[in-house]
């Protein structure tokens, strides 16, 4: 329906979009009533637990489960033998791709274990203690192999090989010997050599980042129940229950219709809950036992066995003229993929220089497998790593040229019509607006005290649309129920209720938004790529328009006038044209009340592939202080300015901005996976994997810039991912400003900072 794509006039008064009502899921969450992944209990339910590899790399010689199976209370044990092998086939998972041949090996190791924590077997038992004991009774014979953790080390010719058949894609000619490099990607525009020749100053730097975990507070959890006739129910904490259904159907060789998946409330995902770990195991155990099976990861499991984002090595070279025009930009990115190919190096390359209007640019990326858990999406996957490096170099160029860093960015900023280095021409975008507002902001103009530093950085993320279905039912009392299929991970139900209410002309409290199970709606791609409010909102508006059309038809029937002589205004059907004023308007509630007599229940539905997603740009500004005797960094002040297109529920837009900044602060200062020589993770818990606590961060100030997306009925852009892109560079730039030291390694943890300060002082 073209009507759904009409952009509401910017001048038009919006009654509900842009307001801040209490979120529909709020009371349940603050009272403890909300059901999360581990909160479902079914009669006869068993507990499932996973035996995980203690080795980062080993061949599995044999697995003997007989002693475990003989233990009283053990109902089933599954291993690689319970899953059929799969052909190589790539399918989308969030903004990333997965290969089923790898997925089946990741959920349960086959020939080899490829990382510490890799699942080797799973048991279902009548109690946790019996399940734990059963795991100890499983004999696995391993032939331990040399391992490699670091991406650069894994690229060395003599590095231990994870996959004997991995021939690097994207190089010509294709190599005939295997390596740990799964692919090479390249994006280029213009001629970088020519561009560097035109430059007055050139900065060249190499950066290293550590893998970081999404750090969702709720561990992965699910309950599976399969009946004797093969019909299955799965309840789990996920960002995409349809995608879980697809994967599980493929792995278990079931019809999609046989599996109904219900997404529980989710205690954080950030991209990490877009893949399957426990779900196929729980289904297989339920299939084998005939009982429901619950599986819940420990925090240790989450760290050792689920996907963080890549650690990486990034080389950047940029040149500029004296008057501050960037003439060339080049980067080489080496990203860890973990045990299986598929790091976010490609989006990393595409994002690297996206905030700038460049004539000559080249990015090359390498996807490198290493003996670590397979990476999963994490907010703007790939972008924060490459843009940390490029925005650090941009800052250094500005400083060398003696140009204010905001002015330098403005001089080179991408605008509407800019040909992005990764391909497309940008439509209306808000980078310039965020920079201009940053420059005018009181924060930017407040003097620093001695010893303090200030940094700024910009960031970009694409955002996506995709397959989306909703159903809207107008209830007999004039209220409405909206069923959506994108799990609500950041307040999207509140936003969907607002957009639906706006379109229908009823109060948002009259709209109850629900996330339906996979059997109640058509296919929905997962909540990722900042698509939920954009896509489900677009679909909700289309469904509302269908309901409105029907309500107008009912009014026409009652008034006995043509359908096209009725208009919908402010929640009422009104006679129009020649009939204007001849009948009293009928409210939505009036029409709903008479629906039974005028043709039956009224509703609308939409099944769309949402197009027109538009990128969001942001600029972050941070003040900090460094304790030069201990290397400890205190974040004093932080401001996020980002284009939201339009903020449907501003509180949740601000929440996304603040959450991204806080996760970025953790990434910049303290978060890292620490491995021993043995390839085992040494800090698989929140004590030593240091995400920020509340008292570590100041109140994060936010400025919502609104440059509407013309392709969305309410101008929406995705907002959830861009906020994690700029913090690392903003903080590194502030560190340079405070200490005179350019830090090129993350995290900037106290021992590293103190050492750099001592080196600076010649100590």
């Amino acid at each position, binding site marked *: 329906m073209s009507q759904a794509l009409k952009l509401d006039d910017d001048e038009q008064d919006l009654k509900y979009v842009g307001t801040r009502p209490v979120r529909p899921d709020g009371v349940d969450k603050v009272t403890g009533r909300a059901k999360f992944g581990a909160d479902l209990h079914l009669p006869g339910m068993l507990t499932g637990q996973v035996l995980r590899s203690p080795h980062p790399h080993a061949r599995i010689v044999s697995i003997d489960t007989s002693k475990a199976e003989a233990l009283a209370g053990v109902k089933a044990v599954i291993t690689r033998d319970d899953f059929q092998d799969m052909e190589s086939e790539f399918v989308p998972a969030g903004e990333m791709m997965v290969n089923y041949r790898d997925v089946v090996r990741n959920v349960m190791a086959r020939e080899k274990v490829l990382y510490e924590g890799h699942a080797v077997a799973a048991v279902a038992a009548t109690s946790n203690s019996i399940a734990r004991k059963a795991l100890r009774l499983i004999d696995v014979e391993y032939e331990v192999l040399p391992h490699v953790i670091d991406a650069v080390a894994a690229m060395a010719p003599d590095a231990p090989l994870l996959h004997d058949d991995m021939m690097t894609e994207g190089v010509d000619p294709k190599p005939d010997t295997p390596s740990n490099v799964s692919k090479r990607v390249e994006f280029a525009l213009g001629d970088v050599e020519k561009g560097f020749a035109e430059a007055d100053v050139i900065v060249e730097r190499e950066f290293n980042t550590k893998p970081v975990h999404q750090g969702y507070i709720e561990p992965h959890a699910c309950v599976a129940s399969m009946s004797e006739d093969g019909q299955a129910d799965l309840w789990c904490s996920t960002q995409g229950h349809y995608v879980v259904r697809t994967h599980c159907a493929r792995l278990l060789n079931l019809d999609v219709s046989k599996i109904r998946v219900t997404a529980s409330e989710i205690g954080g995902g950030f991209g990490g809950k877009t893949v399957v770990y426990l779900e196929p195991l729980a289904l297989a155990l339920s299939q084998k036992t005939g009982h429901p099976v619950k599986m819940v990861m420990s925090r240790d499991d989450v760290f050792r066995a689920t996907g963080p984002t890549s650690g990486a090595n990034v080389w950047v070279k940029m040149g500029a003229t004296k008057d501050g025009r960037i003439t060339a930009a080049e980067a080489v990115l080496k990203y860890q993929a973990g045990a299986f190919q598929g790091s976010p190096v490609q989006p990393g390359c595409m994002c690297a220089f996206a905030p700038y209007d460049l004539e000559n640019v080249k990015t090359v990326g390498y996807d490198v497998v290493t003996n670590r858990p397979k990476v999963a999406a994490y907010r703007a996957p790939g972008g924060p790593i490459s843009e940390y490096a490029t925005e650090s170099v941009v800052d250094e160029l500005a400083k060398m040229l003696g140009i204010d860093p905001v002015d330098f960015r403005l001089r080179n900023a991408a605008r509407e019509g800019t040909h992005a280095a990764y391909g497309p021409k940008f439509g209306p975008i808000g980078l310039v607006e965020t920079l201009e507002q940053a420059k005018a902001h009181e924060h930017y103009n407040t003097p620093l005290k001695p010893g303090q530093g200030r940094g700024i950085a910009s960031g970009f993320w694409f955002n996506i649309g995709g397959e989306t279905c909703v159903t809207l039912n107008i209830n007999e009392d004039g209220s409405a129920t909206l069923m959506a299929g994108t799990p609500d991970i950041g307040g999207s139900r509140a936003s969907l209720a607002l957009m639906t209410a706006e379109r229908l002309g009823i109060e948002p409290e009259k709209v109850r938004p629900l996330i339906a199970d996979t059997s109640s709606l058509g296919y929905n791609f997962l909540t990722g790529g900042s698509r939920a409010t954009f896509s489900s909102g677009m679909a909700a508006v289309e469904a509302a328009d269908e309901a409105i059309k029907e309500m107008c038809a009912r009014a026409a029937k009652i008034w006995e006038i043509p359908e096209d002589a009725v208009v919908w205004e402010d929640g009422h059907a009104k006679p129009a044209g020649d009939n204007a004023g001849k009948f009293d308007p009928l409210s939505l509630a009036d029409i709903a009340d008479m629906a039974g007599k005028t043709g039956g229940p009224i509703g609308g539905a939409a099944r769309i592939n949402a197009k027109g997603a538009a990128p969001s740009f942001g600029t972050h500004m941070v003040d900090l202080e460094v304790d030069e*005797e*201990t*290397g400890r960094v205190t974040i004093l002040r932080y401001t996020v300015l980002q284009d939201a297109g339009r903020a449907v529920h501003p509180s949740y837009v601000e929440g996304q901005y603040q959450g991204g900044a806080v996760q970025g602060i953790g990434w910049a*200062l*303290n978060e890292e996976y620490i491995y021993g020589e043995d390839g085992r993770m040494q800090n698989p818990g929140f004590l*030593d994997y240091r995400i920020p606590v509340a*008292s570590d961060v100041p109140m994060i100030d936010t400025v919502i810039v609104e440059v509407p997306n013309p392709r969305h009925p309410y101008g929406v852009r995705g907002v959830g991912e861009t906020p994690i892109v700029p913090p690392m560079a903003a903080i590194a730039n502030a560190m340079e400003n405070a200490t005179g030291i350019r830090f090129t390694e993350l995290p900037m943890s*106290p021992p590293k900072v*103190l050492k750099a300060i001592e080196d600076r002082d010649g100590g």
Partner: protein
Amino acid sequence: MEEMRYEAPDSLDAAVAMLSDAGEAGRVLAGGTDLLVQLRAGMVHPGLVVDIKNIPEVRAISEEGGGFRVGAAVTGAELGEHAGMCKAWPGVVEATELIGSTQIQGRATMGGNLCNGSPAADSVPALIAAGAVASVIGPSGQRDVPVEDIIIGPGKTSLEKGEFVVSFKFPDRPAHSGDAYLRFIPRTEMDIAVVGAGVNITLDDDGVCQAARVGLGAVAATPLLVADAADALIGSTLDDAALEKLAAAASAACKPIDDKRGTIEFRTKVAGVLARRAALIALDRAKEGR
């Protein structure tokens, strides 16, 4: 399955009897903020857990001979609400209050913190600096042990089988005394000390340091009592030169390891920095006439 018995006796004698019967299988439960975590993680498999919180002696704070006696199972929150201890030993109180979150403070105890045997335990450097003496009870009766002699290695104590700490005796507090504890953590709370430093001083009427004790945590296999660091202060007014000597002596006493929480270099340097900063806070408190 492995069975675990839980007992909560209401007298010292009963607890001693249960623990000596249980031998290696017995574990003492005070606040449980370490033991329960270790149980859940499968790190320990005790056959008997003896909860000592029903025993009056381990739960009381009392005045004794001009000083204080604090039960081993008094919680951090209770200690923080005791006006006398806050006035006399603010460094000990602030160290104990650093253990865990507000919720954990309702359970965590100095006795548990000490007997868990961690080199990084927050209350221990402050207790050592304070010169606190543990009253230990066991099958062979009662004995007094200086706190610095309890931990003998990571997770290891000098307590004999069946023994546990009943209380801590804090010495008399002369005029012009002050103590302080500082720890280094990368975060602001909810963390474990990378370095901890406790300093306790007494000045004379002219502001000259008459007595000092310095305790360090997380820089060696056990918390340390550093005599050289104390000597650097005694006889001085805690002027810059004395503080530099203190920092150097504190750093020199460190025998840390490189681990996930910090490097040898880092811990050694920061131990000196924290000792100096803690001494300055203790000095302020001493001058306030505490």
